[in-house]
């Protein structure tokens, strides 16, 4: 886990903003900043011109977030019938989706087709067999696996065929009367350099031309996945420097007829959401001052376990007198600890603890453990 960034103090306006929200809506809260969400989409569109973005709904599967991104022209990466159902309820066409789960049950495939999601991802022949009954309706992407040495979350272990298997799968697909229209890859999440993306784009470009030669038919899409990093450590990321090699690789390696698409999840939502929790109680135990918050790792801070994230915290009080503290969540489980051995000024019951960058895999993986209702989501 990376170092915890803690910011002490807040401007009067900030303090009033957070306190007003809690006064109005209670605590805990997850505040979605619509402007920030749209800025992230714009940033990605500027950094990767010509790439179509498919928001990975799983990162923060909330209908207002989907609606805001849909209105701004984003498309959607779906991986389950439940996600497709959310889109249908919002009257968002399945034409704006790709179904990216490499392993699907038949009823998931059928639910996707009913929702109008017709592009599917496979990474092996067994999966191709499952899709054969629907071959006249669907389009297929083949997911190829490239490992990233620096990714925090490695997505290339569980899914993806090895690059040297790709031609054989394409050959078998052709023999069964299906056409694979593109390749996809996921280098893993939160990688701080674009090297793996760049290597994968070059290797996919080579594969695409080999496949096109083999089948005698053009492919039309390369899905470069997501994994674009956000700044949990608050050290500042130079996005222009990060994205330039990806931009250059797409520009130089990919033929004109191949459309590029991406599946950003974390990048869009992480910086757009702020968590507000309140001190519910306190105790001195041994060398530490314990503070018990009304949100924890079974709630919005679940990403600290599932997603290996360490959210930047902000304490509104900038009193320089600080002592070693432990921030714990509200459940009875001893694992429910948000931060250990951090220096905090003295907090009172009801004081607010702000968690920044809390959009990705927070609410998405929160549980109902202890029958706690969890943070309320507010769009501002």
């Amino acid at each position, binding site marked *: 886990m990376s170092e915890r960034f803690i910011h002490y103090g807040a401007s009067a306006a900030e303090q009033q903003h957070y306190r007003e929200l809690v006064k109005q809506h209670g605590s805990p809260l997850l505040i979605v900043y619509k402007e920030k969400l749209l800025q992230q989409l714009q940033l990605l569109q500027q950094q990767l011109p010509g790439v179509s973005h498919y928001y990975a709904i799983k990162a923060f599967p909330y209908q207002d977030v989907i609606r805001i991104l849909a209105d701004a022209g984003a498309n959607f990466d779906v991986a389950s019938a439940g996600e497709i159902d959310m889109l249908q309820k919002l*009257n968002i066409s399945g034409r704006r989706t790709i179904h990216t789960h490499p392993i699907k049950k038949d009823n998931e495939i059928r639910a996707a087709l009913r929702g109008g999601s017709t592009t599917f991802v496979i990474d092996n022949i067994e999966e191709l067999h499952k899709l054969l009954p629907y071959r006249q309706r669907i389009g297929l992407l083949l997911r190829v696996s490239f490992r990233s040495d620096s990714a925090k979350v490695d997505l290339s272990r569980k899914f993806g065929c090895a690059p040297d298997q790709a031609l054989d799968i394409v050959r078998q697909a052709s023999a069964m009367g299906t056409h694979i229209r593109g390749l996809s890859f996921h280098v893993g999440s939160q990688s701080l350099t674009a090297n793996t993306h760049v290597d994968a784009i070059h290797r996919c470009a080579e594969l695409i031309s080999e496949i096109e030669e083999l089948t005698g038919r053009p492919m039309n899409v390369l899905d470069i996945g997501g994994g674009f990093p956000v700044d949990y450590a608050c050290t500042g990321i130079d996005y222009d420097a990060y994205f330039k090699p990806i931009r250059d690789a797409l520009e130089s390696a990919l033929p004109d007829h191949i459309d590029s698409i991406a599946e950003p999840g974390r990048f869009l939502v992480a910086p757009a959401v702020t968590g507000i929790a309140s001190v519910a109680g306190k105790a001195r135990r041994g060398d530490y001052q314990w503070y018990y918050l009304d949100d924890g790792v079974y709630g919005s801070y679940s990403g600290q376990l599932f997603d290996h994230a360490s959210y930047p915290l902000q304490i509104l009080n900038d009193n320089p007198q600080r002592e070693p503290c432990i921030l714990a969540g509200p459940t009875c489980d001893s694992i429910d600890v948000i931060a250990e051995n951090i220096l905090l000024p003295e907090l009172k019951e009801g004081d607010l603890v702000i968690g920044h960058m809390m959009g990705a895999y927070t609410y998405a993986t929160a549980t109902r453990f202890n029958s706690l209702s969890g943070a309320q989501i507010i769009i501002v």
Partner: protein
Amino acid sequence: MKVFTETLYDAFGQTFRIDKVYFENKTEHQHLMIFHNAALGRVMVLDGVVQTTEKDEFVYHEMMAHVPLLAHGKAKQVLIVGGGDGGMLREVLKHRSVEQVTMVEIDSAVIEMAKEYLPNHSQGAFDDARANIVIADGMDFVRDTVQRFDVIISDSTDPIGPGEILFTDDFYAQCKHILNPGGIVVTQNGVAFFQLDEVRTTASRLSHHFSDATFYSAAVPTYYGGIMTFAWGSNDAAIRHVDVQTLQHRFKSSGINTRYYTPEIHQASFALPRYIVDALDETKA
């Protein structure tokens, strides 16, 4: 400008300008949209697929109602499975010989919205004394009913969705069971050129239960892709081969006015293009 693009196929899809949305929502069973298009009038869409438009619905409804009813010649009891828009009910009720039409629709929202926003489809048919409207799963109905029918019309959605049960071997078996001697079942079976696998599947399943299992066709403009097929199942091949004079006589004495159906079209519609004949032969091999 708002547009609707059909979601049936990955590689292509027909697109309509939406001049006005009348209804757009997920019902208990499916996603339903009714909108107006300048060229086609009101258009009803279920799960992203065009079901019917005011402009061309007559082709589908006339061919699916009048072909089996006039081939039969004296149908009194008719079952419609699906058909929530009311267009099929309207056409069947035009036959004075028909004493009762039972229409079994799974999604009451489709009927309610069609009554409100597609009134030209039903033209009051829902209020006809001979119409018996049942809100139920079509499969449950055919399994449980004690009624018997002369003609069964399966006016369903595609085989992926709430209509999928209506394409199963079990459904065809139950249809056979509840048909009177000389009865006919017809089902919508999609656009054969792009859905040939569905033709093969239906042909194979239907032939388990009916000695005369085949298809007839019509081109419905907004079912993109050329001719659509209607599956035909009966246990009396003579019904399909009723001569054109007899059909002309029955049609004339019915007093029904049509815009697509003619007795000559009726006969000719059983002639199938080679690619469909070949697909049917494969299922027999």
